[in-house]
């Protein structure tokens, strides 16, 4: 009842936009960058929230920074909010309030894959689009932005390790816990890649630091003592990274055993500087915030398209000036360009789960991994 009323209100409000749309689709053939910029400014403003796991974490703040840079251009009134501690219940309270505040799109990195599902389903029923990023709620969202494909980060890591150790070497992995889904997927990806390309590399052990820096440190020290021929160690959890580097520093093994991990560079600056950390892989968090906003806009346009904007076939890589064309055919859109938010390349919306990359249905993989080394780590503020 309420839903149809809201939809009607939106529809009426959209007539102006629809007229603009028709004008736009007429010019798409010759659409160039300045034209699309003016087109986006005519888009109706939508209320979008970005709800990360908690406030104050550098990577999420970097997402926010990126989102803020493009929000205005995309006609987005952005709210960045989160619980003070990483609690799923705290996020649920925020979602509940956002439903009451008639947000158009909620984007979130969830603290739990199931707990927020009922309230996010309630939001979707109320006509709100839900886009998850970084950590998914598979049963209650329109789209999920996965950070990076499992196989690409796995191969990037192993390539870097092999360059340091040579083709025959003992290596070890430092993970978080034995049941951590993403870490295990990365480990599988690394093993697969090693089997294919560098059969001389041997993973001698996998240590678990329980996502605690001090535990990671002592587990890593144990591994270094136990395997005197170890050539490299791979910490793949954001607490294992500083823990492992600290262990190498303590035992005066900095630079003798290679240290290649997955995590943000800022909190490990000291270890880049002292040579106990060779490289970290992550993705550009600022760009991720930008893509999150673009996906929020696309999700909204896809669901709330004015019927006047009908195009038989959606363009392959629709830019914002072509959103009109995808409004009613959104389900068929398979890829879109990141150009409107300054991101290179196109993004593909997965139609079915993919075991190799880790994508589930309606997932967009954000990025190939970005490598942080001694040469560039100071450039990144997350």
């Amino acid at each position, binding site marked *: 009842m309420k839903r149809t009323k809201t939809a009607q209100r939106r529809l009426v409000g959209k007539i102006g936009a629809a007229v603009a749309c028709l004008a736009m689709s007429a010019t798409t053939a010759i659409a160039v960058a300045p034209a699309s910029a003016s087109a986006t400014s005519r888009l109706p403003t939508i209320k979008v929230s970005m709800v990360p796991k908690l*406030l104050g974490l550098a990577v999420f703040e970097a997402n926010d920074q990126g989102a803020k840079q493009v929000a205005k251009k995309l006609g987005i009134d952005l709210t960045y909010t989160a619980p003070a501690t990483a609690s*799923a219940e705290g996020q649920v309270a925020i979602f*509940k309030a956002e439903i009451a*505040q008639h947000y158009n799109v909620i984007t979130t990195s969830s603290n739990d894959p199931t707990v927020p*599902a009922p309230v996010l389903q309630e939001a979707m029923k109320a006509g709100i689009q839900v886009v998850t990023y970084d950590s998914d709620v598979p049963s209650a969202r329109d789209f999920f932005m996965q950070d990076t494909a499992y196989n690409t980060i796995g191969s990037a890591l192993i390539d870097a390790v092999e360059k340091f150790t040579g083709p025959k070497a003992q290596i070890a992995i430092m993970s978080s816990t034995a049941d951590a889904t993403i870490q295990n997927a990365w480990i599988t990806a690394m093993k697969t890649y090693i089997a294919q390309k560098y059969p001389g590399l041997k993973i001698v052990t996998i240590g678990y630091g329980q996502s605690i820096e001090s535990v990671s440190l002592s587990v890593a020290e144990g591994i270094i003592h136990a395997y005197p021929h170890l050539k490299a160690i791979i910490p793949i959890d954001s607490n294992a990274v500083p823990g492992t580097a600290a262990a190498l520093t303590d035992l005066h093994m900095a630079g003798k055993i290679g240290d290649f991990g997955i995590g943000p560079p800022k909190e490990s600056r000291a270890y880049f500087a002292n040579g106990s950390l060779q490289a970290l892989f992550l993705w550009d968090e600022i760009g991720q915030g930008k893509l999150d906003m673009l996906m929020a806009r696309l999700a909204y346009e896809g669901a709330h398209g004015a019927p006047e904007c009908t195009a038989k076939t959606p363009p392959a890589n629709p830019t914002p000036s072509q959103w009109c064309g995808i409004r009613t055919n959104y389900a068929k859109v398979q890829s879109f360009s990141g150009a409107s938010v300054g991101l290179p390349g196109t993004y593909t919306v997965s139609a079915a789960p993919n075991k190799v990359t880790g994508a589930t249905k309606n997932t967009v993989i954000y990025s190939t991994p970005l490598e942080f080394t001694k040469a560039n780590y100071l450039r990144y503020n997350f």
Partner: protein
Amino acid sequence: MSLSATSPLGTGPAAKAPRAQTAGRQEARWVATVAVLLVALLAYFCIAVPDFRDLGVSGILGLSEQFLFTGLIALGEALVILTGEIDLSTGAMSSLSGIVMAALWQQGINIWLAVVLALIISALGGAINGLFVTRFGIASLLVTLGTQFIFGSVATAVGGNAPPYNFPKAFVRLAGTGSVGPIPNELISFAVIAVVVWLLVARTRYGRGLVLIGYNRAAARYAGVNVQRTLFSSFVICGVLAGAAGIFVSGYYNAARDDIGNSLLLPAITVVVLGGVDIFGGKGRMSGVILAVFLLGFLDQGLLIRGNSSLTATMVEGIVLVLCLMLKIALDRRAGVRLKESLQRRFGSARRAAVLPDT
């Protein structure tokens, strides 16, 4: 309340009557204050926050689904705090209860039977707390600090790597997100439980005993209250209510998690204190606690809907708590109860107990 607590038992010292009367009046006045604050708060949100007003009656009532679990824990916690004790294990008990229910259900046991079994486990947990406090005389603060970790660890162990979710629809509707007309099922359940607990404290000999134990344990003993048994049972009831909160939490989120109750403990204690229950026991009314559940809950939800961040909301709640307690002390002062006296009552009870037989 203290007046009604002493006289029906027939052994209250006559000299105490006037003071007890003032205490009763203070309590009534505080309940009225909380009620006025609640009405004022709702009025403010309805006038000043359009999104809050637009929710309508059913939407506003629906917000209560977010904080009634805290309320259930607060009801049990209030019983224990009235006796002058405290239970820090309630949050962990909620997690444990939800996880036990979910795990049993996953093993193929009927969900309702699983609920009953989880509540029995909760009662046992409360009994363990009560046993250590009454039989071994360990301070409840320490006992429940310890059992908190035990319950939490057991919950983690039972829950395993992937705690169950997606419970049967009927359960989720009844315990979680369903409603009768505009009234959420959770609110109906809470109302029923709250009325029962309120009657228990305000209208029964047992309840008067609870308050008297908190007021003066020795006097309670002389008044014929079975102190040990009453204390023990208050922990059991508190455990069951915390367990019930865990069931409702699991229903509402449609998922059980081993740490889901952790965030409920401190808000629950806040509610009890805001409701006018003396943290040292012996004073307070359940009606105040019940109103405080809604006062704190709507304050939180309203601020979020107003567009405040959850950090601001928490900060405002802290300020409100401190201001309310200052207001309460000011009101109590005017009514003639001095801080020194309440401290004496708390810490000087042994001496007074020694004197009492002669009076």
